């Protein structure tokens, strides 16, 4: 009888032994304790990996109309990069929701006046990070003012929502010129297609229109506001390794773990770009989120050394 009791207890003990392993993170991640820190800093993109990434409304051609364009253009022409950063700060730091922050911006800038001619349902998509939600709400607010029955639908990432946009589950999306161009480029011309996005906004926009048109998507006028992928490290790590720009990372002797959204290893301006343009090798990649709190937390606790953030993030520090 005792043996059987011991057997049951022994199983529990064996399971408990797992406790000590996971607390020092031995097999879960390469924790480089020197990369822990509370402040995150962006390393400059000195070799210009990122292209122009202005915010641009992309619309299903079937739903495109002058009234729709007029409303969305109002947001695009008003929005600047400092405005975008301030909006992100309002949500991520001042704890306003995207809905409230968007509403305030729209009324402060008088974006609802002079709009009309809208009718019918419009679904605006928002990706899985707060800036996208804010932009989507900005769009929805002006569309409502124009008379559309507009609503915001929260989705995940482009690999999932772009087909949905083409299919009609979504009608409008606040997109990023360069990243979308390359996404559609790879989709149409294969994974090794020559890049069509560049540092030239006009050229990139016309490339985008050429790729989007055949898919039933219309591209409206881009905004001056832009938000590119950026890569951050903790201030401690930067100081310890004398880092100011991304090409400095090549000299780091310790193992580098990259953190970002699940699609990062397959996106040209993410992991593959860092590997090709900057010649970096990462020990591994950790799937977290798109420049969001999970990635930033992982940077701060040292489970990743380099993380994807957004250039318009409202809560980053400076070197």
């Amino acid at each position, binding site marked *: 009888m005792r043996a059987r009791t011991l057997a049951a207890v022994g199983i529990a003990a064996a399971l408990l032994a797992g406790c000590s392993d996971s607390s020092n993170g031995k097999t879960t991640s390469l924790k480089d304790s020197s990369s822990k820190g509370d402040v995150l800093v962006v390393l400059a993109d000195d070799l210009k990996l990122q292209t122009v990434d202005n915010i641009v409304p992309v619309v299903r051609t079937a739903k495109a109309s002058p009234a729709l364009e007029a409303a969305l253009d109002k947001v695009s022409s008003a929005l600047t990069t400092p405005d975008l950063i301030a909006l992100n700060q309002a949500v991520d730091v001042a*704890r306003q929701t995207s809905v409230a922050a968007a509403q305030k911006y729209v009324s402060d800038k008088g974006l609802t006046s002079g709009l009309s001619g809208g009718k019918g349902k419009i679904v605006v998509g928002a990706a899985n990070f707060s800036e996208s939600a804010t932009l989507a709400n900005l769009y929805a607010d002006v569309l409502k003012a124009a008379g559309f029955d507009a609503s915001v639908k929260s989705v995940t990432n482009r690999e999932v929502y772009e087909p949905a946009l083409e299919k009609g589950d979504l009608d409008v999306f606040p997109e990023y010129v360069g990243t979308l161009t390359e996404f559609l480029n790879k989709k149409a011309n294969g994974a090794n297609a020559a890049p069509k996005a560049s540092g030239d906004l006009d050229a990139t926009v016309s490339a985008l229109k050429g790729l989007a048109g055949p898919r039933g998507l219309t591209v409206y006028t881009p905004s001056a506001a832009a938000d590119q992928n950026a890569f951050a490290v903790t201030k401690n790590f930067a100081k310890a390794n004398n880092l100011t720009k991304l090409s400095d990372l090549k000299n780091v002797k310790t193992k580098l773990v990259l953190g970002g959204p699940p699609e990062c290893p397959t996106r040209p301006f993410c992991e593959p770009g860092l590997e090709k343009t900057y010649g970096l090798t990462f020990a591994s990649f950790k799937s977290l989120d798109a420049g969001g709190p999970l990635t930033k937390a992982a940077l701060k606790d040292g489970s990743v050394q380099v993380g994807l953030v957004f250039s318009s993030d409202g809560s980053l520090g400076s070197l």
Partner: protein
Amino acid sequence: MHHLDAPNPWFSASFLQQNKDFLWSATREHLVLVGLSVAFGLLLAVPLSVLVQGHRRWSALLVQTTGVLYTIPSLALFALLEPVTGLTVTTAVIGLTSYTLLVLVRNVLAGLEGVPEEVLESARGMGLGRWRTLVTVELPLAMPTILAGVRVATVSNVALATVGIVVSHGGLGQVIFQGLYANFYRAEILTGTLLCVLLAGAAELVLLGLERLLTPWTRR
């Protein structure tokens, strides 16, 4: 560094105030998801169970099939359905319905099995046909067990519906995740979670009440 520290209360009255509409529409979607999935679950489970009841091999097959559906990780099921049925309520409901089937099938079968043989015999003796016996005798007697299953399926689905966020229809899961995206805003995250728990509790109470109403003879 200080201006980068975002306040992060666990509870915020102003958050509730400013986001009444959002919270209400998320709750509404949550109710729709749970209601539809349990309803469809019953619509599938009851006829299927009635059909296989009494036939051992078919019963076992039905239970095993619904069991297999149950072991498919919810994240994977939603992810695989999405390309087919899109980012729609349909996708979420299909996923949620499949998770109710095991409990509902098991309980309908158990309920029908629990009808005493003498009762069936006297029904036959009274001249009631198969169909009428089923509807007026067997199902009512199986009701307590079936309703117990409905209760378990409903409460489970209230919790599970949040996973629908991966296909853009997660009801209160939307509130939880918006809180996450907005730099780990605790008040939003906790509000979404608590509303979910409250909804589950309310559903449990309502269904208990319904059970009492529909099966007065069990009150004794």
